[in-house]
């Protein structure tokens, strides 16, 4: 009787996590045409920053605020130093960002000593509605995801920065001719995508705990979600992430978790094969 709302909430909160992780990946892939293989490691880094702040005795929410800033700054630097050399060759970019990810992942593995480290939830306990209990932190994740989604969309669709980003996406040479510094726009977009991943990592670390391979799982999930949703638009990755997140949370209720996990990916690959342009075709950010 009570399992249905609980299940719905589980699905919703896990879907929100996937959306949060995928958003940054999707923005970088859609706006810059680069599949960033280091994105999973940006998530990991966000989680690690939160852990560091927690371990020196400062409150966890402070770490969660610091994580996107630190990871975003790192993304900015990496874009300036490394990633910008790859724009001409998207495939090389995949390999280059993969190498970056490897460095970050192994560095974190060395720093954590390969252990599973846990970070407490800043808001513990549960919210009780009638006879149902919902974990409070998961509710917070859902709310923050919605806020971040809305803010990102607003940033890209309504601000002058967003206009510049879209202009650089649609026609880089005309954008440059109009006086937009496309190089700077790309750096900032990449940093923004990295910061979103950092935030995602910071928010999910109390749920998943910190370990070096945290990023890999989300990387594959994120890529599949972006491809299912469709590269090139804002709505695409979000739609894809919702589908993948819902499936990954819902299928384990029906069958064994291993089979469910595999089935999600197989279904997604078939979907991409049948509909290569993704669920949401078209480019740009819809107002």
């Amino acid at each position, binding site marked *: 009787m009570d399992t249905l709302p609980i299940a719905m909430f589980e699905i919703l909160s896990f879907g929100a996590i996937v959306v949060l992780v995928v958003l940054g990946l999707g923005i970088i892939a859609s706006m810059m045409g680069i599949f960033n293989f280091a994105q999973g490691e940006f998530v990991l880094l966000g989680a690690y920053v939160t852990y560091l702040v927690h371990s020196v005795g400062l409150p966890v929410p402070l770490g969660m605020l610091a994580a996107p800033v630190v990871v975003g700054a790192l993304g900015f630097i990496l874009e300036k130093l490394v990633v910008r050399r790859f724009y001409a060759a998207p495939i090389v970019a*995949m390999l280059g960002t993969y*190498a970056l990810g490897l*460095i970050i992942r192994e560095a974190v*593995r*060395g720093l954590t000593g390969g252990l599973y480290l846990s970070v407490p939830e800043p808001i513990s306990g549960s919210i009780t509605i009638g006879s149902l209990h919902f974990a409070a932190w998961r509710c917070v994740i859902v709310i923050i995801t919605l806020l971040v989604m809305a803010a990102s969309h607003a940033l890209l669709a309504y601000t002058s920065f967003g206009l510049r980003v879209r202009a650089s996406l649609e026609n880089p040479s005309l954008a440059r001719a109009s006086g937009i510094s496309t190089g700077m726009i790309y750096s900032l977009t990449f940093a923004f995508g990295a910061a979103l991943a950092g935030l995602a990592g910071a928010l999910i670390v109390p749920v998943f705990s910190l370990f070096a391979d945290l990023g890999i799982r989300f990387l*594959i999930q994120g890529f599949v979600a972006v491809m299912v949703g469709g590269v090139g638009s804002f709505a695409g990755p979000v739609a894809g992430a919702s589908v993948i997140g819902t499936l990954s949370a819902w299928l384990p209720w029906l069958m064994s978790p291993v089979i469910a996990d595999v089935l999600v990916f197989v279904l997604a*690959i078939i979907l*991409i094969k049948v509909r290569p342009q993704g669920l949401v075709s078209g480019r740009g950010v819809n107002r």
Partner: protein
Amino acid sequence: MSSTGTRTQPPPRVIQAARSPIMASAFTGRKKVLLILELALLIAASIAPIVLPDYITVYATRVLILCLFALSFDLVWGYAGILSLGQSLFFGMAGYGVALLARDFGVGSIFAVLPAGTLIGFVAALLLAGFLLLGRHPSSVVFVSLGTMTGAYAADRLARGSHYLGGQNGIPSIPPMTIGSHELSEGPVFYYLVLAILVLIYLLSRFLLRSQFGLALAGLRENEQRIAFFGYKVQHLKAIIFAVSGAIAGTAGSLYAFHEGFVWPNMLGVVMSTQVVLYVLFGGSGTLIGAIIGTAIVEGLSFWLSDTYRDIWPVILGALLLLVILFRPLGLISLLLGERERVGSFGPNREEKRNAAP
């Protein structure tokens, strides 16, 4: 009409020029570097077990098997431009396949298990290629890489969850491979066996890639559309090379299973397939010898350094890889070999034509 008719016939003088030994030696100057390199490596590999202590020979055998595996990835990525991030799927499936044959059916004869492993790799790759590469829409590189990676991830998960396959621990203590009544264990004999297989497959691949088929592959790596306009069935070419590489990965996987004596889920998963990407990028994709050199260097370095610098070794490896990708996109081999030898020369050489032209 008559003029076009004569133009399609090659002038006989050019053919003669191509066969004249003086002309032929004029354009092999660069090519000799590759040949010398290959021969030097072969000689070094042949005498290695004689000069090296036994425990290093065992390690070297593993490196040779990994070289074979790297070769299979190089064929698809370096030559056909298919970024297969799930090459370990074929490697691991063949490994598990032969391990099950040995465990449950007592089949250990090399003449049964190696063909079986190769066949498993071939069939698995053919099926995956049929799904990923063939079809109405041509598949994007990103889709193929994602699809293969998902395949490896899924296989890894399933193997970990399967009781029959031994779960997390895999299948331990596989009975040794046999030739007739002789049991093959680690050591020089196994080493030379693997070396012979590697050389054989290397030569076969070299022959395949220097043929018309190899030229078409190199063409589709550089510009897929143009090759399609020439009338080649691009997707079929890709599927064929993918299946061939799957077969080679299968051979490597079955050798690996018997050499190590056990198989475990990591052999199937993303860890192993990223490892092989690393080898090939490091050495230089698009040259067969580059894959071999890359594997030898990465494994050799990790043999030395992973003891002393256990924690930071993977970080160093990642940084080296990044540097190679940034500054030497064609890999370390490009320090020695020219761009031209990535493809090889076909037909009468250009210089030769210039000399021979009336």
